[in-house]
């Protein structure tokens, strides 16, 4: 972060664009000023403000793992003014980035445990950062299981990486689409994420579970995890309330007295239970 002007972004060059799903793109961003890039570091779970000059800023997580240096990635869906302006950028263009902001997934504390990732829709990007950060240090963890669902087959993001994870013997991957979203060729499951998790019933013994999804998915998945015996302190999620500043001043992301940008975005279910349901 720029100490002299906390609102001043880094200049980032888009070095690679990947079309993930209809309206969803991933940008790989490299620091235009290599000196700034060398001083920059982040940890998985953190987020930033991405901007097109003249259009404004948008908040996304850093979707790449902290284990890979020299660049960051973000994945976004084209919906509003800023994301449309971003989607219209081409490789080589320069955009703004402020960050990293927020707390982190404490993956160092998860050593020696099973990891279960549960994601829905466009919420895979924050999870993808954690998954790769863990896969890049694979021997620190025991079983790694990934549940991922989207409305339709077409809406699944990171299709190449899903294939890669599916082919790895050290990852258990469960893909699902909502009823009606399947295609004739679809080999995954059909059903909502919480019910797929309930059917597979992963063991809660010595396991950490990470849930990312729309608020409705998070609220429906917690009771299933409780039934499977997971303790609240071992369930992690990341909240994505609307933000402008990213550092606790603009006043809109707070859930009760807790600032998602400063105290989060990573919370345990234990912490969420103490917070009002304002997310």
């Amino acid at each position, binding site marked *: 972060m720029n100490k002299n002007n906390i609102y001043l972004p880094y*200049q980032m060059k888009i070095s690679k664009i990947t079309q993930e799903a209809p309206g969803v793109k991933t940008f790989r961003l490299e620091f235009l000023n290599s000196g700034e890039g060398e001083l920059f570091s982040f940890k998985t779970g953190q987020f930033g403000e991405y901007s097109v000059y003249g259009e404004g800023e948008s908040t996304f997580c850093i979707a790449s793992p902290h284990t890979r240096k020299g660049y960051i990635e973000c994945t976004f869906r084209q919906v509003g003014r800023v994301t449309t302006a971003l989607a219209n950028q081409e490789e080589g263009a320069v955009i703004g980035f402020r960050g990293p902001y927020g707390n982190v997934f404490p993956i160092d504390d998860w050593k020696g445990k099973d990891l279960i990732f549960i994601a829905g829709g466009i919420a895979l990007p924050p999870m993808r950062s954690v998954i790769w950060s863990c896969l890049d240090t694979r021997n620190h963890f025991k079983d790694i299981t990934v549940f991922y669902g989207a409305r339709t087959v077409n809406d699944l993001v990171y299709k190449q990486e899903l294939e890669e994870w599916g082919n790895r013997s050290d990852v258990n991957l469960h893909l699902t689409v909502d009823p009606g979203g399947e295609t004739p060729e679809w080999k995954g499951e059909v059903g909502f994420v919480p019910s797929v998790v309930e059917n597979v019933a992963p063991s809660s013994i010595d396991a950490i579970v990470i849930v990312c999804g729309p608020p409705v998915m998070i609220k429906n998945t917690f009771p299933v995890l409780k039934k499977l015996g997971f303790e609240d302190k071992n369930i992690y999620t990341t909240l994505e309330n609307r933000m402008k500043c990213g550092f606790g001043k603009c*006043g809109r992301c707070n859930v009760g007295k807790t600032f998602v940008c400063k105290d989060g975005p990573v919370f345990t279910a234990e912490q969420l239970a103490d917070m009002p349901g304002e997310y």
Partner: protein
Amino acid sequence: MNHQFKLLRKESYSGLIGNLLKSQQVYGPVKQEGYTYYKRISYPDEITEDYIIPQMSAKSFVFPKIEKLFSFVKSKDGVRVEDKNLDTIPKKVIFGVRPCDATGIHNLSAIFLWEPEDSIFKKRREQTTIISFACSSADDYCFCTSLGGGPGNTAGSDIQLIKTGTNDYLAEIITPKGAEIVSSNPGLFEDVDSVEKEKYLVRLPVCFDDSELEDKITDAFDTAIFDDLSMKCVGCGACAFICPVCGCFDIQDETKGSMGQRVRIWDSCGLRQFTLHTSGHNPRDTQGARYRQRLMHKFSYMPDRLGVKGCVGCGRCSRACPVEINIHENLQQITKLVKIHKHE
């Protein structure tokens, strides 16, 4: 607090403003079409003393409605970003600030100087000297005393002037910045022996127990009281606009041709779009939830996180509200709530 007091005779008052005008921008309460505003002045006699409280608070001196954060120029070769030059922020002295407004700036500082420090706000604060006028009158909307403030409260002020029975002024020297003004105007301030500041101040009754408020409102989160109190709220955001402590903002880009700037602009938690997600989901989806946020932020979250309240009891939001929602009455109602026992 043992502040030093000096005497500023009525004959010296204009001289002080005149001297200040020679070295920096001077602002003060000025009458305009029957209303009072803090405005830039060129002559000492533009300042009025005939006001309870100016229409707008003094927050825009440190937190302007629109603040340029940096500028940029777009061309075929890309974007050139130019950082804001903080040296262009001028020195200002604000005369006749009410103690509640000075406290507002003090409390607003807690938000902007909270890590990470906002250097733009900080520079504006450093460049601004506040000479407050203690209150000898109040109206039905004023309730600073119920929140631990008062007509002679000195938080946020560098000097406070208190008008005496002889129309002279007691000058209470509060900060080094204030002391510097006194020392650089040696002929104007006289030594004074005994000081009875209180007798020149308006008496304003305390209407509720401030120490109970934070606990009561924090416990009331899940009750229906915020829906009840805001039933008639139209979500116009006027309360935030005129509030001396409302610091919530939006960040937007403004462009003209190839030139542009990123700006920080006032915003309000009372507006529906404030927290609206791209997906259409809104964590504060009713006016009641938004009013709850407004009050909880001021009386629960800010005290808890920053050690200051988000309200100084100036009563402006009640005066400005088009549907007559009265914050003073609402706070009294909240402090009368019985203790809520939560189930473990």
